[in-house]
């Protein structure tokens, strides 16, 4: 299992980009005691046969590394879901894309830490290629939305360390503002 929720999210978005997606959406919503995540992409998608094996850690479609037989990303997700009393849905169609939805009991003792939102979301934006990534983060009735195209428009590019550091600080500021509003009665750890 990944060490943090952010690690798992980074893995799912990287999967989407490796599937050739040009449009990826990530939605993370927290309400009291529950965390809902949805990752959607318009990549190459998976057949029903591949979907049936996608959660198997000893299965890989073999396109990336033909000699390797491991595929741990979704297996880690299943492990996280099972360990924290959650659920997982995988919907995919060849040529259309893939939607992964999962939800976790945010108060479960085995709930992983959230992780570093600034570095994680910036990392998702910084893969090479022309793709749009839209991130919607919500906690209760508060939230923020970040689009890769808007960050690139504001910063010019997302390749130099200077612009990546600024993007990371911007994302972190959005998350910090959301955390500061947590005292208004929302959030996974509210009691």
């Amino acid at each position, binding site marked *: 299992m990944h060490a943090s929720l952010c690690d798992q999210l*980074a893995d799912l978005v990287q999967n989407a980009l490796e599937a050739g997606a040009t449009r990826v959406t990530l939605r993370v919503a927290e309400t009291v005691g529950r965390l809902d995540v949805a990752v959607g992409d318009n990549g190459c998608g998976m057949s029903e046969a591949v979907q049936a094996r996608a959660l198997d850690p000893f299965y890989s479609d073999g396109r990336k590394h033909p*000699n390797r037989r491991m595929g*741990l990303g979704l297996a880690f997700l299943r492990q996280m879901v099972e360990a924290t009393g959650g659920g997982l849905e995988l919907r995919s169609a060849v040529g259309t894309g893939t939607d992964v939805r999962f939800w976790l009991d945010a108060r479960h003792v085995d709930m992983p830490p959230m992780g*570093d939102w600034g570095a*994680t979301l910036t990392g998702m934006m910084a893969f090479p290629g022309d793709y749009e990534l839209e991130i919607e983060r919500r906690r209760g009735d508060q939230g923020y939305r970040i689009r890769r195209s808007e960050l690139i428009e504001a910063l010019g590019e997302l390749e130099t360390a200077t612009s990546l*550091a600024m993007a990371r600080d911007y994302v972190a*500021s959005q998350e910090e503002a959301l955390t500061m509003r947590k005292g208004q009665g929302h959030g996974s750890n509210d009691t």
Partner: protein
Amino acid sequence: MTLEGLRKLREEKQQALAQRDAGEGSIEVIIGMGTCGIAAGAKETFSAMVDEISRLRLGNVVVKQTGCMGLCASEPSVEVVVPGMPGVVYGKVDAAIGRRIVNSHIVKGELVGEYLFDKPAADIMK
């Protein structure tokens, strides 16, 4: 911070950004961010190297990410391509080693030998 604030911040740091165009060719730092890299802490490596490159104002360095480079047992892995030098891959690069690579390999042109691999894993080379 707002997007407008981000634009203003960029303008303030425009001088550092402009150095990229003034260089004789970009140095590339490519960090493996597959499942194995993420699980081994590649995001912390990414963040540390971005901070160190930014702190040293190395405007001619671009930082990129890629998927698994095949060195799953030696993650996080980082490839460094400096014009005029052979491209090399480092393994087991935590945040501290990432900063060392910036200061030694990128700034001084000296390899960090004990973390060096010569190229990505043979069975995934194209």
